[in-house]
């Protein structure tokens, strides 16, 4: 341990007010989670993250489907998927050896929908997607021959 001498520098400035609790929950995001949340969110506009919210029944919590694709050197596995319309969580197991994966989602006949950068070295990761009925192609930006056809009914 080393003890240093006093250093008479500080000019305290303690006149500030405490604003730490003035936090807005992002209502737009909360609105489409569940009906219960939608009603509550409009009441509490200044939620602190420590505040307990009303309990939500398990049946009311939207349990999103998980859709996991594996990417290998040969491309996506599976290469074709059929699923219902609506929201789901997309995960990718990257076993391709390619360090950086960027997914490109396109709607057949309509073109580009969005790009999704798969975070490198994530311990876990999932991307929420909300697809309407139609056919989609998922490719990797630098490997356009890697393709997964997603049919949404």
């Amino acid at each position, binding site marked *: 341990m080393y003890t240093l001498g006093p250093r008479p*520098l500080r000019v305290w*400035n303690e006149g500030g007010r405490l604003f730490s609790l003035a936090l807005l929950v992002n209502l*737009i995001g909360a609105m489409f989670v569940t009906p219960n949340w939608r009603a509550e969110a409009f009441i509490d506009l200044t939620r602190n*993250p420590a505040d307990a919210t009303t309990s939500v029944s398990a049946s009311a919590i939207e349990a999103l489907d998980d859709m*996991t694709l594996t990417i290998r050197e040969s491309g996506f596995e599976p290469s074709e998927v059929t699923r219902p319309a609506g929201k789901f969580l997309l995960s990718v197991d990257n076993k391709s050896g390619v360090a950086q994966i960027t997914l490109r989602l396109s709607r057949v006949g309509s073109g580009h929908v969005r790009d999704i950068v798969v*975070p490198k070295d994530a311990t876990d990761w*999932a*991307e*929420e997607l909300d697809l309407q009925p139609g056919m989609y192609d998922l490719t990797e930006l630098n490997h356009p021959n890697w393709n997964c056809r997603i049919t949404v009914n």
Partner: protein
Amino acid sequence: MAETVSQAGWVENFLQVALDSQNYYLISAGATSILFRSMVGGVNDQSVLTYDPNLYRHWRVRHDQSSNAVSFETSADGDAWTTRKTATAAFSLTAVKFYLMAGAWGTGNGNPGAAKYDNFQFIASSTPLPPPSCTPPTSLIISEFRFRGSGGPADEFIEFYNNSDSAITVCTADQSSGWALAARSADGTSASTLFVIPAGTIIPGRGHFLAVNDSPDGYSLKDYAAGAGSNATGDLIYTGGIEDNSGIALFKTSNSSNFTTANRLDAVGFTGSSGAIPDLYREGSGLNPIGSINGEYTFVRNIPNGSGGVPSDTNNNSSDFLFLSTNGGVFGGTASKLGAPGPENLFSPIVRSVMPLLFVDDTVTGSVPPNRVRDLTSDPANNSTYGTLSIRRRVVNNTGTSVTRLRFRITGITTFPVPSGTADMRARTSTAVTISNVNDANTCATLGTPSYPPCSVTVQGTTLERPPGQPSGGGYNSTLMVTLPQPLAAGASLNVQWLLGLQQTGSFQFFIIVEALP
């Protein structure tokens, strides 16, 4: 020598100052002779005189720093000393051992008597030499800090990080006393040294060094965990303090006249002041001020995705540092992300990128049990209004040695505040669970019952480390510790889980780094 052994036959007694068997200084009396020996690199240089127990009653080996000479001296009364031999100090004297020995060898003396030594002293010089000149290493950076905390304006700490794989030793080119951490005034018109990391301080590769304010109501996180059985107390303490929203810089010298950009190792400061001094005490345009409000907050270097745990150092404070608080609050108009201070010292666990995190069951994807488990049970009191997500992995000890302390630091997480469509996740403490039907042959072989698929395994829970208290749950920079009932042997593995409460559902990311100690 209060009493020497008999001088007949193969008996002797001696004083030795030794680095090792090839490098030592020796005064030895025996067989009516007294010997003064300088052994350097196995080469013997000695002088021998006839022994007189009264004339040579007191012995002294003295090192003169200015001439770097070693003198072998004797005295009859302990006051008047006579130099019997001199030699050049040709090996390191920074870690020598002292031996006082006596013994009889062979059969030449059946009654050697007893030796008595008294008044052994090790006297350090009152005028140490300046440290040797060197080319200082440049890998030490400021990795986390705050100029105020929950305890008030003195609740400060500054954490440094050796951003290299090799240990560094603090040294200076100008032979000043070490590396100075200086702070500027709030108005940017002056600056002064707050403390000096002394020359000779060794900081391990990827290790940390912690300086804390020891003033009343000062550093409040001394009970945050560090090494096995130790906490994050300061490696160096200082008093006084740093002004809110000012700036600090680490220089590779303690000579304030050399506080220049060329001698600056790192700096971090705030916007709001302009001029040469504020510019010297920040990198880039600086951080947004946070006012003068007490809070459990911290500034910590961002660890980018895919960096292997290496913090960002682009010489731009605003992009290199994250502003975190345990309530995700807004301070002085600057918004924080949910997270916690996590000060680390010389004894804290070190990032081990060689410890991989594998799926508990690699025969299924990462998004399904047992690798990821979604529980829809609402538990608002524990920051889990929308249930929990348990992420489970098998951590393998590839460090090559046993691990006694293991924890995980969150370096990336979608957490409060988040936009719509993004999950708001809060790290929680969890307990061990047993899972069955694991079909991964490697997991079963190392941890399963039976040792072949399908097997059952235990997944250890992790504990959110406190202080600070994190009533909103853990976020960025929070650490989750796993209790090791016994050291994790080299090559062994352990299943662990990280439990995350959900306050909002959506896309999510979760990044951790492994920190461990042998």
